[in-house]
């Protein structure tokens, strides 16, 4: 009986100690997060961004392949046959890609980001962008390139009938050469040799245009909102300066610069 009493007292004490210890135990500051579930849902943005990245990678790889083939030593001469050959290659690469007009604009800006694309060689870059524009499904392509630091050459090369390419910003040399019936709108300035060798279609430059405009032009029309610095040797076609027809006519002569 006495033994039982003692046992009870001991048990009581042990229990009391335990409760004391429990109350003294440090509370886990992260205990509140035990059943915390991080809610991270998939939203359509994730897929759009991911798809855009995939397409951009494909476009970039195509460009790099073109450079490997055409500008092995990072030098590229603008000659008739080099342009044709580069364009054929570019067309071959871009036809394998499913992309949109927005992807082309993103590519133009990615060209200036050396971390993403190591080399911007204006000639092949312009040919490649032209191939992208000519092969895209959209009929109207609008490229907002005003903030681009580099003026891209050869943009609008062989733009086919039924396509309308609008460039916000300035373009470099050889804009719209070999145009094949498409409509090219430059909402800025264009440099020299614009519309050289174009066969048909329309080029509209909102501001000024450089030298040799329409050199060996076979047809089509060039409208210039500002000033035409100089005409090239034109075979056929029309050139307007501020709505005034300057070729054919006796207002301007080829290879004279104004």
């Amino acid at each position, binding site marked *: 009986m006495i033994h039982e009493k003692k046992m009870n007292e001991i048990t009581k004490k042990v229990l009391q100690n335990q409760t004391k210890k429990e109350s003294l135990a440090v509370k886990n500051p992260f205990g509140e997060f035990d059943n915390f579930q991080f809610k991270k849902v998939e939203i359509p943005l994730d897929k759009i*961004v991911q798809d855009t990245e995939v397409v951009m990678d494909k476009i970039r790889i195509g460009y790099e392949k073109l450079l490997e083939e055409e500008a092995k030593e990072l030098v590229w001469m603008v000659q008739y046959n080099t342009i044709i050959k580069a364009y054929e290659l570019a067309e071959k690469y871009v036809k394998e890609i499913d992309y949109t007009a927005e992807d082309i604009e993103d590519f133009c800006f990615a060209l200036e980001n050396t971390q993403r694309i190591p080399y911007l060689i204006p000639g092949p870059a312009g040919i490649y962008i032209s191939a992208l524009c000519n092969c895209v499904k959209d009929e109207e392509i609008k490229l*907002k390139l005003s903030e681009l630091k580099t003026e891209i050459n050869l943009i609008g090369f062989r733009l086919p009938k039924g396509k309308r390419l609008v460039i916000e910003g300035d373009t470099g040399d050889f804009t719209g050469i070999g145009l094949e019936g498409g409509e090219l709108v430059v909402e800025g300035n264009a440099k020299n040799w614009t519309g050289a060798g174009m066969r048909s279609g329309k080029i509209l430059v909102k501001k000024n245009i450089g030298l040799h405009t329409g050199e060996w032009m076979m047809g089509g029309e060039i409208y210039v909102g500002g000033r035409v610095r100089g005409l090239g040797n034109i075979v056929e076609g029309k050139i307007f300066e501020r709505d005034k027809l300057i070729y054919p006519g006796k207002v301007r002569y080829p290879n004279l610069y104004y």
Partner: protein
Amino acid sequence: MEQRNLQFIIEEIWPKVKKKHLYPEIPIPKVGKIEENAQKDQEQAVGIEIKQKQITINPAFVYQMKDKMREEQVIEALLDHGVAHYTFCPWDFQTHLLLYAEAKRVVNDKELAKQVAGYFMDVITDTYCVKTKSTEIPQLHRNLKKSKVEEVIASLYQKIWGIDLGISNESNTGSRHDEIVRRLARIPYLDRSRWPESIQKFARSIKSLLTYEKEEEGKRGGNRGSNPQGDHNLDNYSFEEIDQGLRDYAKRTMAVSEFRDIVEDFSEELKEMGYGMEGGMGRGRGNPIDADILFYMKLAETYSIPIKKVKTEEKGSLHPHSHSPWEIGSPFQDVDPWTSFGKIMPGITQIWKKKEGKGRGKLEGTPDCLIAIDSSGSMINPRKSLSYAVLGAACATNAYLRNDSKVAVYNFSDAPMGGKDILNFTNKKEDIYRTLCKYFGGGTALDLEDIMSLMNGRKNVDLFIITDMKITNLEALIGFLSQIQNRITVVHIGENPYASRFEKAVEKKKNISIFTVKRKEDIPHIVLGSIREYWNSNL
């Protein structure tokens, strides 16, 4: 009464919102009237305002939304939005400035850039909340009244969140807006590392729409309505955050012109915050902000150099000098028990008043510093591009001022011909920086009389010279420096015969340290590193 009810709701919701956002250090939001800078007849009130971390909910907005959403939902959505600005975007003032600067590069207009940055940050915070938290934000957007731009943004949300916000294609005024939304939807909003390029793309896409809306408002003769989710301006940040942001931005850009552009764009707000150039720590009222000086000031604050203290002649230990009555709160250790009759009682007890003695070398102190800076034609104009010479001098200035010493500046080009600016010993940081930033161009010659009169025979003045050493009267300078015993630091930029001649002439003088800097960009690092070594060595 109603306001009190809303405060009660906030207090109920706040723990939940805090937990959701992982306990940001933000005070409990309050209910209060928000001043709106837009037209008074605006249909939609502003819902939330953040000033120096304090979120305020506008009761008028909550009541406007009452018929469409429960008050709890409105408040939770607003709080999620406000808190996400702290926890995700912009996160800090530097990011805000950076986003604004990138937007301005595209839109080229201060107001438009501010709008673009605001919309961009809102898209990011709301998308972040929708993706990572359970939030009422979509419900809020469904019920907000929208301007044309806000309608396009809502269409964007619809597309990137995959939630119907009640924006139909018909209301979206056609394909032009579809094109904008298509472009906006391709931006990786949640990728922080790509925000600078993302905001450029955002600005490019939305620029035409904002310009059109601005023109329309101009025709109507009104202002842009306030953003119901709160406008983003400098009020959102505390002084310290702005200080830190300016420092970080200066360090990130390292370009005077970029920094100047930003500071000039925010000059009104900065002035409101107290950033004039007169007054302590670059703050004060009523003066135009000199952005170039602020640039060097903030950039120099990012470097820190310790100065080895030297034993000073004038400073001695404190000694008991006279008695004064003890007052409650005065230190007990100064009580003189002999004259206090052993009692602690006001009126009876006396304490020792201590005075500094003229002990010799008992205490260490930091001497004052005379900075001689070359601003001849061969040096960079600090107001046109980053001058590492000025930056180096600015860092040295900060180091001395931090140690309660004074700094004098002798800015020279062709000093005998008047190409000089002299500032006597002072602790006015702005005056020192203004003198350092002065640029003369032209030839290089020192007028040693000026330096002598500034030093006035004081031995405890450090001399700090930054020059390219192409000094016409170099021999006279060498002669002068050989005679004085002060600590002298000479930093010369580039190797040239003059520099070699100088080095050879003073090589035996232990109190002269010469640092040659080959790359100008290294000046802050080399100078400061070497000076640290020099100042910490025993002379």
